């Protein structure tokens, strides 16, 4: 066929429409799950945490997290005296295998499980140059592994240190709040396996959720509230020394 300049001008838009309809298939929807009916968060009852590390192990098994990297981890705080500005914090291997005995006595010590706070106004999603990370309609901060360039902006932007660059894929990785589980009516792997009920998934759009009721009627706190990130991981019994 003899392609003239004029014919090319007709052909190009036609090609664009063909690509659009043929190459990009329509996304499949999760059955029986309506995203707009949920707004997910998590409750951490610090008064119950025993620092066993089961959550860290479960997260690694569920999400195939490489060794030495953590989507969730447990920190142990020790405040020797009145100065909550200077806590001693340790987290050997993310607390995965528990904690050695405390060497110093006196003062107070406790465990603080940490993970992505699934901020509604998250700094990490705002800095992504390609739209690879986002807050889903049901309030979960996710990373599109196919779109991420691995530029690490989001890793620097997260004030909670919850992101890392996955060395296997060279893309940003983080807690998905077990999106593949909560879509199917299950709870997250960490909440499922937590033996003391420290971690509990909460649906902030469901007024009948008992955990939602708990948050409604108890004094809870989020981490770094001064950053106004609208964090959705609520801590009960949080000490002022926790950063």
């Amino acid at each position: 066929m003899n392609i003239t300049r004029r014919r090319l001008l007709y052909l190009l838009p036609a090609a664009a429409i063909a690509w659009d309809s043929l190459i990009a298939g329509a996304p499949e929807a999760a059955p029986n799950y309506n995203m707009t009916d949920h707004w997910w968060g998590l409750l951490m009852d610090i008064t119950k945490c025993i620092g066993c590390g089961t959550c860290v192990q479960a997260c690694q098994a569920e999400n195939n997290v490489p060794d030495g990297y953590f989507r969730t981890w447990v920190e142990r705080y020790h405040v020797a005296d009145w100065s909550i500005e200077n806590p001693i914090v340790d987290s050997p291997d993310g607390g995965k295998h528990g904690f050695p005995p405390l060497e110093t006595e006196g003062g107070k010590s406790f465990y603080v499980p940490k993970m992505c706070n699934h901020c509604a106004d998250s700094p990490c999603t705002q800095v992504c140059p390609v739209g690879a990370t986002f807050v889903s309609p049901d309030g979960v901060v996710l990373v599109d592994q196919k779109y991420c360039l691995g530029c690490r902006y989001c890793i620097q932007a997260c004030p909670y240190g919850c992101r890392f660059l996955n060395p296997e894929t060279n893309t940003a990785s983080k807690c998905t709040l077990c999106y593949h589980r909560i879509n199917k009516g299950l709870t997250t792997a960490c909440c499922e396996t937590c033996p003391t009920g420290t971690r509990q998934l909460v649906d902030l759009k469901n007024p009948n959720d008992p955990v939602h009721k708990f948050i409604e009627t108890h004094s809870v706190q989020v981490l770094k509230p001064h950053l106004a990130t609208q964090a959705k991981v609520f801590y009960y019994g949080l000490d002022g020394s926790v950063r």
Partner: protein
Amino acid sequence: MANLKDAGHLFRMAAVFVVGIVLFLVLRGIFVPRSFGQYGHYRGAALAEIASKPIMFAGHGTCESCHIDVQEVKSKGVHARVACESCHGPLAKHADDPTALQPPKLDVAVLCVRCHEANLAKPKAFPQVVSAEHSGGVVCDTCHKPHSPRIADADTASAENPSGDSK
């Protein structure tokens, strides 16, 4: 007409712009996935991709649908609210096909102390022991049955079972 003849360079310029815009639309059609912008400034299809990942932990509800006997013992003990897979590990494959994956034998020497080894940072009300001093080398499940670990409970349970009485 003479004016239009002089304006030929403007038409050529316009043609370059039109070609550029068409080329932009074509490339955009090729490189921007269709679901981009469906919910916001991201690929909407990514949600379904993330949601379709396989599950590793079946959830205690799934376990209890078969292991009713264990659930009954457990529900009366102090481990009632400890999920099966907290100790037994991820067993969704076993739940899908019980013959495909048998749960591994558990090492009580590791598992019990993971929670119950004494540590000053643990809540005071949580039962804790210094394992080295507590049993003198006797394995935990000699006395404490993991599904209902309080010794008084275990005694009544083992006294009940041989006689066949349900209560």
